[in-house]
């Protein structure tokens, strides 16, 4: 084999490294420095796909995590209230099992055994269960409507801070209670 052709790679490599750092890191930094919340009209219902509910006072919309027609994420004092609607063509137990698996195996949190039924003020039926971890705990509501081929998933979670968590959970419950689907 002939001698290795002599050439330096460090200037180009350094330029690539700086470009990658500036691009990926710079975008993340810019994103972090840009405010992400937006206030919602007080006392008025908001629509998420085919579901709607009335946000409690003081909850702000997390703009980048919300997708019109699919997901609405609200935020208050470190607590998150996320509503997601999607099509569902399977059995009524399917989303519950999958969600519990996601929480336990994907997020490494513990699901409490008792699954309770829930009925909203507008007659929407569903199930709910609590989950917890060393730093985070939350509650999940699932409303499956096979006739409408619809599932509404509400995930409420936040830090294990007893003082703020109890109040935030009450507000989350009131938001779920105000929920209905396809109301005109």
């Amino acid at each position, binding site marked *: 084999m002939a001698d290795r052709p002599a050439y330096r790679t460090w200037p180009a490599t350094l330029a*690539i490294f700086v470009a990658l750092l500036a691009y990926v890191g710079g975008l993340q930094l810019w994103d972090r420095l840009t405010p992400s919340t937006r206030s919602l009209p007080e006392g008025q219902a908001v629509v998420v796909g085919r579901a709607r509910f009335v946000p409690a006072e003081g909850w702000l919309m997390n703009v980048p995590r919300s997708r*019109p027609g699919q997901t609405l994420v609200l935020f208050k004092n470190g607590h998150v209230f996320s509503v997601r609607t999607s099509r569902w063509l399977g059995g009524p137990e399917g989303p519950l099992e999958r969600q519990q698996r996601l929480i336990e195996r994907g997020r490494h949190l513990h699901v409490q055994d008792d699954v309770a039924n829930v009925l909203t003020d507008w007659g929407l039926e569903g199930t709910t269960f609590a989950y917890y971890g060393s730093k985070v705990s939350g509650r999940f509501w699932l409303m499956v409507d096979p006739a409408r081929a619809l599932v509404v998933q509400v995930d409420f979670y936040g830090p294990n801070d007893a003082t703020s968590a109890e109040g935030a959970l009450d507000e989350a419950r009131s938001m779920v209670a105000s929920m209905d689907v396809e109301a005109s």
Partner: protein
Amino acid sequence: MSQSATSGPTPRGVRTPAPRAQAGATADIAPDVDPLGIEPFFQPKRAAFWLLSALLISGVFGIGQLLGVGLRVVPVAALLGLFAWAMYTLGFVAVFRAMDLLDQHPPAAYVLAFAWGGLGAAHLALPANNAIQSLAAKLVSPEFVVAWGPALAGPITEEFLKIVGVILLVLTARSQFRTELSVLIVGAMAGLGFQVVENLSYTVRSAITFPSDSQIDPVFWNLVTRGLLSGLWTHAAYTTVASYGLALFLFRRERTRAARVGMALLCFALAWAMHFVWNSPWMEDWFSDGLPGLTLLLLAKGMPVLFAVALIWHAATRETGAYLHALAASVVPERELLRDDEWLCLGSPLARWRVRRELGRAYGRRARRLKTRLQREQLRLVLKAGMYGRGARTSRHEMAIRRLRAKLEALTPPEGPRRPATMPP
């Protein structure tokens, strides 16, 4: 000049056809044709090697975590998806191999390129894409992101990251890249790696949110829509286009540096534009919902990309063909190893395929298979002789050629097909 593919060997130097002799003379003075020696991709003394390695290792952890969540939450979909996309990759590799494109480099080049696309680029693309979409939602609106987010974030981030990997590979082992085709195929593999890992990630995510209990349906749905209907004109195609710019920069030395940079930027812009149109909501209103409408939409968006990529492959193949002709004339003058008609077809995969097809029609499948192997061994001999010089590394190819030719001659009478159906220009 048009010798039979199966007739007896011509003694060396008895008859030198004018074009081969001229090419040989040209090769004698062309510096590119001189065996330079070739470097492996393991280059611990080069900074590019370490940056490439560090980003690949970081990608292993990042993409591994994503896949790990999938395996824990939707294990059937994740495993089936892994299998399906692995088979899909092998399909692409088989096509590349059938076109003799994989003989341009040792396997390490393709493994590294694929790994870069699937691990390095895919891992870095995730936070960058998320940040762009998040910024667009904050600065414009969430509605804008739903429609234009993928077109805004995907092309600039992903095309940039994929081509970075190809540049790092070129920096790591510059002498591995001797033709435009050798850059293009590495670019295509990097794009394929990104495409496959992205598809796998979509499959797993789709299984987590799929509107039924089935973990198998989302795999098939993604395989059909993302693999079969979109596979030919997405990432592998875009990175091929961007890599062509890099190839032009590296090999068009007769142009000024500014012109070469301009050509590279133009190809990158073309790759970006193709990706942008693909990700944009344009033309979606023209077609109905459902699989037939989706199929037509994907074809309408994809065919121009395929056409552009075919033109680029053609141009690169011609350039590589000229290089191979000159190289073969210089390093493999023996006609029992490479006859004139075979030498003429050496640089054109299509012409070689036509020869195989004609031989197959005349003498059956076995003859065609033998001719395929013979052509591949000849290509390897020429490429390796150009890289390492004639010697121990090429002797097994020389023996294989002689063995295959003897078998082929036993199958075909001496008056066999006198010349291939089509000669390259």
